């Protein structure tokens, strides 16, 4: 800006047109008679100024046009936002605009753009999967002379770099805190192919925002996991959208949530994999902590109903002696900061403790021999 030179009113550069002729107000007439200034950049390019009312008009008009062009996405974003007044108001405004946009075929501009970049229903233009570790060994299929086909499965308990253990890690932002550390630790063994699929602000209450069951259905054939590790739920204390909405904290909500988790666990273990479900650690905020306790309790109940599910309570690893929230833990005689200052997420040191617990579970409860 300091490189701009200001030129006094230039009649030659009145580029903003004239106001409408239909009974202009005093203010419009005033604006119309303002001579724009011409500003010149250091490189010699000129631009003009406008009165604030015209800038406001331009700003509002551009937003309005964008609202129509992008209406279907904005409508979707409003639909997937937390149930409440804000969502209701947003949908009341956006529903008719989106309907008009569709009717006038304007929404096709946006849908074509989304198709061009390959954006999928979960809002991602590419796979979320992050795979590390030794190259995955394909199943060995042999056919005998009698025509009997036998498939040799990779050994689960004695993985090697030639036949690595396949682990799929799923989660929200807390799951990603754990997942990054766990994936790195598993990859460092040299005998595990670890795949991480995580997305912040997701959970099982709002499949309209991010559909974890669909994501899992897509991940399973791609990764063929022997072990699935999942950690999610901190974003779940919210109403199930209806109609009718099912408010969080009601018996009906608890019933639906438990059923949803059971179904997800059944899906995760449907191909024979063992699911290690890591609970949400205690939260600093008492209100959030109480809500998270409800989620943990329902997830624990669900875990007892599905075969091949191992439940790990992270409160026993990241909590204090009473299993309550703490930012610091004494590990090997040294204090370690295990939680971030927001009182929610897990620090790298905290994630290391949690991933060590998961690996220990794989060793002790599943008998997997890891270097």
């Amino acid at each position: 800006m300091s490189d701009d030179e200001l030129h006094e009113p230039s009649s030659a550069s009145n580029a903003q047109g004239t106001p409408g002729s239909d009974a202009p107000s005093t203010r419009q007439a005033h604006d119309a008679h303002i001579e724009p200034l011409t500003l010149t950049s250091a490189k010699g390019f000129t631009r003009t100024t406008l009165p604030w009312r015209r800038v406001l008009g331009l700003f509002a008009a551009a937003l309005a046009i964008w609202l129509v062009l992008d209406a279907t996405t904005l409508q979707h974003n409003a639909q997937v936002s937390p149930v409440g007044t804000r969502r209701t108001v947003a949908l009341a405004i956006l529903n008719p605009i989106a309907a008009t946009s569709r009717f006038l075929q304007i929404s096709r501009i946006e849908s074509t753009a989304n198709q061009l970049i390959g954006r999928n229903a979960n809002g991602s233009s590419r796979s979320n999967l992050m795979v590390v570790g030794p190259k995955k060994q394909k199943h060995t299929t042999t056919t005998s002379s009698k025509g009997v086909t036998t498939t040799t499965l990779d050994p689960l308990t004695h993985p090697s770099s030639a036949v690595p253990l396949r682990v799929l890690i799923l989660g929200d932002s807390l799951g990603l805190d754990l997942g990054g550390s766990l994936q790195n630790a598993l990859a460092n063994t040299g005998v595990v192919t670890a795949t991480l699929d995580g997305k912040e602000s997701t959970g099982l209450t709002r499949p309209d925002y991010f559909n974890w069951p669909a994501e899992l259905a897509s991940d399973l054939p791609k990764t063929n996991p022997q072990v699935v590790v999942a950690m999610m739920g901190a974003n779940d204390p919210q109403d199930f959208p209806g109609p009718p909405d099912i408010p969080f904290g009601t018996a009906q909500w608890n019933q639906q949530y438990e059923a949803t988790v059971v179904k997800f666990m059944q899906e995760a273990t449907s191909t024979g994999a063992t699911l290690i479900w890591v609970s949400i650690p205690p939260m600093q905020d008492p209100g959030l902590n109480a809500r998270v306790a409800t989620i943990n309790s329902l997830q624990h109940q669900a875990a007892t109903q599905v075969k091949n599910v191992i439940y790990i309570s992270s409160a026993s690893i990241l909590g204090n002696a009473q299993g309550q929230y703490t930012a610091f833990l004494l590990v090997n005689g040294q204090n370690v900061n295990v939680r971030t200052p927001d009182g929610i997420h897990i620090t790298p040191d905290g994630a290391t403790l949690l991933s060590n617990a998961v690996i220990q579970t794989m060793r002790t409860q599943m008998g997997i021999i890891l270097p």
Partner: protein
Amino acid sequence: MLFPTIDFAIFFLVAFALSWLLSPFPIYWKLAILGLSYFFYAWWDPKFVLLLIAETAIAQVGGHFIALAKTERGRKWWMIGSVASLLGILGYFKYVGFLAINIDNLARHFGMGNIVPLIQPTLPIAISFFTFMAISYVVDIYRRQLEPARVIDTAVYLAFFPHLIAGPIVRGGELLPQIRRRKDEDHIDYARAMQLIVMGLFKKVVISSYVASAIVDPVFASPKSHSAIDIIMGAWAYAVQIYCDFSGYTDIAIGLALLLGIKFPVNFEKPYSAVDLQDFWRRWHITLSRWLRDYLYIPLGGNRGSEASVARNIMITMILGGLWHGANWTFLAWGALHGAGQVVGHVRRERREKAGLPAIAQGTWRHWIQVFLTFQFVCLAWVFFRATSFTNAFQYLSRLVTGWGTATSLVTPLLVATIAAVLAVQLVPSNVVDRATSFFSRQRFAVQAVLLALVLLVITTLGPTGVAPFIYYRF
């Protein structure tokens, strides 16, 4: 309230209209801007508005009594008291947990047991930025470079929402006169403002988000699983990510302020075209660099004294500058690396000048070699800035040696093109932006509205569904 959200667009529409409607009535304008700014800040956590008010009160009282003091000694004590109070607040929220755990662990090492309570206060957003602005206000009054302002002016100066969350760190002498002056409501430099906002959004929402998810996050999450090529590209990509993230925020902040009739100082000037680290810091986060220079480096002695004194001053300044970003040893290492690099550069300049040579080697090839080497050093330091711990940083760097047998999985033509394009814009002079702004300014109203809407559509289509907060929001 993040800039690239509908919430903010609606907020700004209201703020813009209210600001200009009240522009003829200065006191109402100030009250409205203050109310809007506190509302903007309260969006994250209302209780910390009280902290912002407390820092404003300290700066105001300190500035007032510095000006009233009859002796130099009195002025000095009021200045020291105010700065110490402001630093005390910053220290409590930002560093107490870090200090406590390190002191406690040291005590345990010597068998002394638990000697300090371990606490971890919630970090109020933007505290580093508005505390530094409050300090500059007090010190400028002490230095007689600034007259004490009225309470409402000081409050607006510290809380003005376009700069509140992540700068630029504007000085009292730059902003207070603009707050007091009636703005020209008939001549808004809207084309430049729109260009800054749109470019800032594109850099943040499209480029920064893309490189973060495409390579930076995966390689830093699990460096041992990636090849040396991935590691090198990951570091370059992070240089692009943090530049697009932070300069994108700054562009938007400058553009928004311009729409409200306020001019902010420039904060970035093609930093990756720097020929050495001194040059880099004249181009990167310029308002922080000059703050550190004027309120820390020069009071420490600056360039005066022996080479050893200058080296000490540079190291202290850069290490504290590193810690300003966060209470973590990795930030300290980042600052120390930049400090050490600048000490070497300073000695080199001095010796060249003594030998009758230009401080910076001349010639096209030498210029490009210096730019290349400076960029590589900056990227090396960024590894510590981005890493979650020393272990993570050293794992990352060790792959530069051990990662040559691993297949490269994350480097795609699109990623290479994106990194190259961002760097090329800094390295190769171009008139494209000025030409586009001029073209936009010449269009009719309806065409301008449609163009803006289409650009917004492109940004929202190419960007991810949820935009991550700006990196500098954490500082």
